[in-house]
């Protein structure tokens, strides 16, 4: 019973965080980002249209109902199932299903808005063009925090060797994993530094301010990830033999990454909207045809490898480029290998 209680104490917050972040992410979709609503480009002058407001209302209502129902089902499962393994398995499946159900109102709203756009022949001015602000692009590499901060933080990862009670092989493994994650963060830092700047307005000052903010915040977030990664790896090296502590540390690290990403993304969106509200030269761009189902980006004319997602948090891969396809295949292979290895170790431990 104690084991069940302790697992519940960990599992319930995880479920709550996942559900809350999914809900917040989807409810944020009812707000207009630039001239995009539910992944559909709409002329800014038409956004006050009554039909659009009705779609937004219906979306919010169905999302609230589905979220409440999902939470109720999960709480019921926590009460009814007593077996820890069974509860973990069923709850994981249910969480995935709930997240999927919560995505349905978005898909329906997008479909309805697309139909409305075609019915009313709302056309956005700029299509099929690649935009570049020469003034911003020329100095884009200066927007990010310097690599020296990363190097200093990464060097602290050698502290995992301090716990002399631990076998050298284990310490080396922790160090290698820590270095791998730091390396991935550095890779993203490099991509962020080189990535092309986005054009929001005909006013170069606006483009400069927003791009600087976005690049700087992304690089600071990556630096924070490296710090968190190193801190948790050092903690793991000291509490290697305490299974519960390791579990808590692992879950906490994942939650922190998720929450930081969401917080940064939200702040970026708020700041971008704030700057664009005061500008009267905002560019309305229509690249709907390059967004398959509003989620997958496939634009062969866009050289960017990663682009900001239209819905949800973070970035997505541009599948229209060779590099994008390569990254996608690599990620798929990595996921398949990690699932296979996890299954292998679970079976081995049983």
């Amino acid at each position, binding site marked *: 019973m104690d084991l069940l209680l302790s697992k519940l104490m960990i599992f319930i917050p995880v479920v709550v965080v996942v559900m809350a972040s999914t809900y917040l992410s989807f409810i944020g979709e009812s707000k207009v980002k630039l001239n995009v609503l539910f992944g559909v480009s709409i002329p800014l002058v038409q956004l006050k249209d009554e039909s659009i407001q009705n779609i937004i209302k219906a979306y919010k209502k169905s999302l609230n109902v589905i979220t409440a129902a999902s939470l109720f089902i999960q709480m019921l499962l926590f009460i009814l199932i007593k077996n820890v393994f069974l509860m973990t398995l069923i709850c994981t499946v249910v969480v995935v299903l709930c997240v999927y159900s919560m995505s349905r109102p978005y898909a329906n709203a997008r479909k309805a808005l697309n139909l409305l756009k075609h019915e009313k022949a709302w056309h956005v001015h700029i299509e*099929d063009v*690649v935009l*570049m*602000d020469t003034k911003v*692009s*020329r100095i884009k590499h200066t927007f990010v925090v310097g690599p020296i901060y990363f190097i200093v933080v990464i060097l602290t990862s050698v502290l995992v060797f301090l716990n002399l009670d631990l076998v050298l092989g284990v310490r080396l493994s922790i160090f290698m994993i820590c270095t791998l994650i730091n390396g991935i963060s550095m890779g993203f830092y490099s991509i962020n530094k*080189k990535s092309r700047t986005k*054009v929001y307005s005909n006013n*170069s000052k606006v483009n400069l301010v927003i791009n600087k903010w976005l690049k700087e915040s992304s690089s600071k977030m990556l630096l924070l990830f490296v710090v968190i990664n190193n801190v948790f790896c050092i903690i793991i090296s000291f509490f290697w033999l305490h299974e519960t502590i390791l579990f808590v540390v692992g879950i906490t690290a994942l939650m922190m990454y998720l929450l930081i990403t969401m917080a940064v993304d939200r702040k970026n969106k708020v700041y971008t909207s704030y700057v664009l509200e005061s500008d009267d030269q905002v560019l309305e761009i229509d690249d709907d045809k390059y967004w398959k189902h509003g989620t997958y980006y496939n634009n062969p004319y866009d*050289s960017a490898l990663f682009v900001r997602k239209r819905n949800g948090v973070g970035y997505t891969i541009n599948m229209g480029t060779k590099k994008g396809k390569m990254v996608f295949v690599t990620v798929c292979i990595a996921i398949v290998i990690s699932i296979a290895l996890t299954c292998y170790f679970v079976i081995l431990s049983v």
Partner: protein
Amino acid sequence: MILQINFCDDTPIYVQLRNQIVIAIGNGTLKYGERLPSIRQIAEDIGSNPMTVNKAFAILKNEGFISIDRRHGAKVNLNFSNSMDFRKKLASEMELTASEASLRGIGEDEFLEMCKDIYKKLKYSSSEMIPSGE
């Protein structure tokens, strides 16, 4: 300046680049002495081959709209020639434009008015130009 490159357009990319830079210099968006991004940077950002951008820059340099420094890259230049060759080229292009306008029912007055409106938007008038060699 905001470059707008249309990859679906029939106009070659280097011509689009050249034309947009000339217009930006004309209407004052790009100022005299202002630096342009490097060839590689433009090519990366618009997703084209560096040779394409190089071709546009070479044309702009030959026409005197930009000067290229090995250390500082490309800069906007206004020290271009107002030669007879250019006048001939302009006359030939104007002939085509005027013919098209006439065939599409645009009268002489309206055409000249349009030309005046376009000229008013330009920051640099002919008197501000610095003829080469002076």
